[in-house]
């Protein structure tokens, strides 16, 4: 299966960190915290730009 692209989720009211999500063709869904070390004090727009540029770094998959 081709690896699906990550999608940046909209921030919720009590979230302090950004989360990306993706879904595989077999229905499996993964969501991960975003590692933001590439930017200082990032905001949603910054992360969205990284996602668009496919430069997002997420936490390890760790199976499943």
């Amino acid at each position: 299966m081709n690896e699906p692209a990550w999608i940046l989720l909209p921030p919720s009211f009590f979230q302090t960190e950004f989360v990306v999500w993706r879904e595989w063709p077999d229905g499996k869904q993964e969501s991960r915290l975003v590692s933001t070390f590439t930017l200082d004090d990032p905001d949603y727009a910054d992360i969205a730009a990284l996602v668009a540029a496919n430069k997002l770094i997420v936490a390890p998959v760790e199976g499943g």
Partner: protein
Amino acid sequence: MAFITADRVKDTSTTTGTGNIIVSGSAPFGYRTFSTVLSVSDTFYYCIQGQSTSEWEVGLGTYVSSNQFARTTVLSSSASGSAVSFSSGTKNVFITLPANKTLQFDVSGSPTAGGILYGTGSMLAYSTAGTAGQVLVSGGTGAPTWSTVIGLGTVTSVNVSGGSTGLTYSGGPITSSGTITMAGTLAVANGGTGLTTTPANGALDIGNGTGFTRTTLTAGSNITITNGAGSVTIASTGGSGTPGGSTTQIQYNSAGAFAGSSNLTFDGTNLTSGGTVVMASSFKRNILINGNFLINQRVYVSGTATASGTYMHDRWKSTTTSSNYTFTQATPDTTITIAAGTIAQIVEDKNVVGGVYTLSWTGTATARIAINGGTTSGAYAASPITTSSATAGQQITVEFSTGTLGRVQLEPGTIATPYERQIYNEQLAQCQRYCYANTYASGGERYTGLASSTTQSYIFYTYPVTPRVPFTGITVSSAAHWSVVNYANTTNGATSSIAYTCSGINTGTVQATTTAGAPTMTAGNQIALYPTNASALIIWTGAEL
């Protein structure tokens, strides 16, 4: 069969040729017949002489039958010593004395006075006479001679010397009669002891590098020595040989004596302690988790090729591309067969006390170990493997290559002890420190939360075990495996997505998205996320090593 010689035996024969001679069996007047003195097989010297010819023959005959004999050996004849082929006519046949079988004196006549008879090779002769006191000396094949013995004399003085032996002699020399007396001590070099002291009871001659020291034995620890006249008795004082305490009690040193206690017994089967057993290594000595592959929260499927870094059974991860192993899940222990690649487990630094560790397992797989937070390298080896001394508080990685594998244990020390199995719920809790999974189980799971809109809701989790670090994500088997129910109006509907929201070390939150109207909900409604499919699975990730 015998050799026969006899006087006045004579007969006649008309036999011709060189064969056996047949005699008439009638002896001339004054003679005896052959059969009178011979028996069959007897041998004798014969002579055959033609009465009217010059033919004659002397030889050794063998009497082969009555009045017939064979000419076994011809000694001399008219045919130059060969057998004569006798012509016709009558022959005189008689027992004779052949010349070359006869001992005779030469013409000198009488034997030499005092001479010794000896053979010359063709006849007998007498040696010359010696003088009084001489002895006969062989002349080889010649005549023996008489010789005078040289050195004859009379001993006039006898004495003895001790040389360097340490012995002395007195009383000599003796010129007529007397006694030589020996004294002194035989030296070591001559096989003696060199000692003159009278040995005490139990004394032994003990080598000292140059000679001997005559002394008694010295008793070592727990040994007693009793020296007697001609005897040494050695005994141990380590114990009487009689166990202390009662039957089944294990013996221990109680102030130098054997003793037993009811607090420590062994009946041949069971070892029982009534007190506290203090060990250098605790009973929880296996610092690997899930070494028997009992916990599989991620539901790794047998034979699935797995990317490097991806976890399979709890705490075990692939360390090469497309690693996979096969297994049939069993209770309590599962043996896996690593078909391709390698798998590894990293021991958390907090569980490493330092020192050497021994890795052991069942099966044909081979392993290698990295200590002090290092990366595994080098050759793989069979069980067991002992590490060099590891630094406390540094991760240890064990990695296995292909083969069968089960009951993996890493423990302090150099001895591989039997596999230490955990109580199931304890082993599950150990695994949940690194990974937490929500499963379908019986379908009765309800994870409660609140709706934040008509399509969004947040579900709150309290972890059963504090994770190593806050989880950083979730993996959902399929959103279709989960539904949300609104407790306010009991409407429900399947989720379209479930995503990680946040996590601490005690609680975590996920966000579920549903279709408006299924369920029907508004912000603030209390809802619950629940599994609807036996394969439903939410795995909390990010706490593994």
